[in-house]
């Protein structure tokens, strides 16, 4: 019977599919896409028995966690255990990953059709699913870190999927290096925790931390380093620069990895280690909030002026990730996880919608799109649902989830944070509605592309519609009644928590403010960007400085480039010179040349004549005799 004890099967199935596809992929019919889909589909089905068992055991204290693991290394006193565990956080991630991965892979069958590396795409997708499921199932930091790097590697492979395009190869490199900066912090943080607690096990680490094994500064440093990993992976300021560029990958990749799953791994990591954050200095959580808020603002304003549809959606993803970080900064795991769930559905939907537009027109710049709702009514409808969900219009899922975060920020943070959150809701409504208006309404700006546009095939629209339905209803689970009906005793808020059960609350005033802000955003977008978008252009011309600032991404990319050019490369050149001249030419080649030269000179001592040798021997003996007589006697 499949249950929590063998939840590792969820990760093992795609891993097996990956192994088979890697070796036999080219020989399988249809390049093995069915195998990849079957594996992730089976994982999705296996999720339900795991959930059922978790629900069954959740009220029995001590029955949790479902542990299965094995000893990896055992040497004298040193023992390293790797294992899997299922708890409430994991369950949310499991359903998100397995369901969205299934939808995206089905969608990809049509989207990637005819690509020369069709089979490789599904191979990578399987590896990604395996790594991501391992990441959320891991019960220790070491396995988590291995899977963490695994998803990063898949992200690299898939962003650079069309690596014959230079920009894609560059973007893949940028994503890998930028996230790596955070990953180094994560690794150091994990090692710091291990050094003082002697274990990689997450639960044991918590217990040790509660017992006060670590001093507060030490623990604070460790959690901040772990947070650095989350900042890199979840594209938070200042390491957010890689995510917009990651849109170079195929759109299904953006939907799965760079919207629904991998980028939320950072949120998951912070949620998972939140007990440590709470034990650390309060400044740690304040930093999470502050960086989250900064990210929310920068991404929202940049989203206002970008014209590439995938990039706008990417900025909205960064925006959402920032919101989740703000929720975690307030200690609200449930709010963050519910938003994560809703976000996974509507953001995957938005990306798949972008993919359909791209597939139909071959254009991804809104300056060349427009009026597409006449050609693609179904795509336009589901995309509209995604836009409204992201904007936070009730009763779509985005509203309920975002409302939880805003409510928690109004209760746990100061008025400044709350005010910024409401403002961000307004800007989100503005730029999401703008995206919809520019893409699907008005007059087509590129006649040729418009004439060729067509509705996507059913294999692409069906996942879209399923995700749209979930984007509508997923938010309703915040209600206790709905949660109970689905089998979660006491509502989902009592299910997903770490320290204290949190019932989902609904505050009329807060909700009203956020609805008004969201509606104002959407209506503002209608005013600015309807038809010819004259008011928007006028506003841009009126504030050229602000427009340039946003358009150039706050010059952060330029700053990093300058930093690389003037500091990193200069230093690298010095190191390269040192390596070439001092280490290589002098140290290695120099000593070899010296040996060759001296050998060439000294070889003439070997005359081959017996009398010379005899004379040398006797001379040596005489010298030794003289020395012996003068020194020893």
């Amino acid at each position, binding site marked *: 019977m499949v249950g929590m004890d063998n939840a590792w099967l969820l990760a093992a199935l795609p891993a097996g599919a990956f192994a088979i596809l890697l070796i036999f992929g080219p020989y399988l019919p249809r390049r093995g896409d069915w195998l990849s889909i079957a594996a992730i589909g089976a994982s999705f089905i296996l999720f339900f028995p795991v959930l059922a068992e978790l629900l069954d055991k959740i009220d029995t204290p001590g029955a949790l966690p479902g542990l299965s693991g094995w000893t990896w290394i055992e040497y004298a006193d040193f023992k390293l255990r790797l294992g899997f565990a299922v708890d409430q956080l994991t369950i949310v991630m499991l359903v998100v990953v397995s369901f969205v991965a299934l939808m995206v892979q089905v969608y990809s069958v049509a989207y990637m059709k005819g690509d020369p590396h069709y089979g490789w795409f599904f191979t990578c997708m399987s590896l990604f699913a395996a790594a991501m499921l391992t990441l959320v199932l891991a019960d220790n930091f070491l396995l988590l870190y291995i899977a963490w790097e695994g998803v990063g590697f898949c992200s690299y492979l898939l962003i650079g999927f069309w690596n014959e395009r230079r920009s894609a190869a560059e973007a893949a490199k940028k994503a890998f290096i930028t996230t790596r900066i955070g990953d180094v912090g994560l690794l150091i943080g994990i090692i710091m925790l291990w050094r003082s607690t002697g274990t990689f096990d997450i639960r044991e680490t918590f217990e040790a931390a509660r017992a006060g094994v670590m001093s507060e500064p030490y623990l604070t440093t460790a959690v901040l380093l772990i947070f650095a990993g989350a900042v890199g992976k979840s594209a938070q300021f200042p390491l957010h620069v890689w995510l917009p560029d990651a849109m170079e990958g195929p759109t299904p990749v953006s939907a799965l990895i760079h919207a629904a799953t991998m980028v939320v791994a950072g949120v998951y990591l912070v949620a998972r280690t939140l007990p440590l954050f709470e034990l650390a200095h309060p400044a740690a959580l304040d930093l999470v909030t502050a960086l989250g808020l900064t990210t929310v603002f920068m991404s929202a304003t940049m989203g206002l002026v970008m014209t590439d549809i995938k990039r706008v959606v990417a900025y909205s993803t960064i925006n959402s990730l920032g919101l989740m970080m703000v929720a975690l900064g307030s200690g609200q795991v449930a709010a963050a996880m519910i938003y994560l769930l809703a976000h996974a559905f509507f953001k995957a939907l938005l990306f798949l919608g972008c993919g359909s537009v791209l597939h139909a027109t071959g254009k991804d710049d809104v300056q060349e799109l427009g009026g597409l709702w006449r050609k693609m009514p179904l795509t336009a409808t589901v995309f509209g649902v995604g836009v409204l969900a992201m904007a936070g219009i009730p009763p779509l899922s985005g509203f309920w989830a975002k409302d939880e975060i805003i409510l928690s920020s109004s209760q746990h943070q100061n008025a400044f944070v709350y005010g910024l959150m409401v403002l961000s809701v307004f800007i989100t409504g503005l730029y999401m509605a703008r995206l919809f208006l520019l893409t699907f309404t008005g007059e087509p700006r590129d006649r040729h592309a418009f004439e060729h546009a067509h509705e996507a095939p059913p294999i692409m629209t069906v996942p879209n519609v399923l995700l749209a339905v979930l984007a509508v209803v997923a938010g309703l689970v915040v209600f206790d009644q709905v949660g109970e009906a689905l089998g979660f005793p006491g509502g989902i808020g009592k299910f997903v928590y770490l320290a204290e059960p949190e019932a989902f609350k609904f505050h009329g005033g807060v909700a009203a403010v956020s609805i008004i802000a969201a509606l104002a955003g959407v209506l503002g977008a209608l005013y600015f960007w309807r038809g010819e978008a004259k008011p928007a252009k006028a506003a841009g011309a009126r504030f050229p400085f602000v427009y340039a600032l946003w358009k150039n991404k706050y010059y952060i990319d330029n700053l990093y480039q300058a930093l690389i050019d003037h500091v990193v490369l200069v230093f690298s050149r010095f190191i390269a010179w040192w390596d070439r001249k001092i280490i290589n030419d002098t140290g290695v080649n120099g000593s070899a040349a010296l040996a060759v030269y001296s050998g060439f000179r000294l070889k003439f001592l070997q005359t081959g004549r*017996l009398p010379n040798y*005899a004379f040398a021997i*006797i001379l040596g003996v005489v010298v030794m005799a003289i020395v012996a007589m003068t020194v020893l006697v």
Partner: protein
Amino acid sequence: MIPMQHFLVLSGILFSLGVYGVLARRSAVLILMAVELMLQAVSINFIAFAVYLAPDAFVGLIFAVFVITVAAAEVGLLLAIVLRIFRNQATANVDEVDLMRW
């Protein structure tokens, strides 16, 4: 009884003759004979020390036997080499044989 120094002097003279022979002679066979002289000088030393300093121990005497054995084997080997050189080079003059140089 003859004092030990006499034996040592004899040994020294023989050894010096051997050294002179090795350095001054050019014929390989003569050099071999000079080497034998040096070996026998050492043997005389061994026996003299053994008899005079440790009459109860046989170590020095045994060593002399060893020296003779090794010398016999060595001469056999070296004469074979000299013979081959003579066959190949038509000379046994060590000044003219420098095949093993750099």
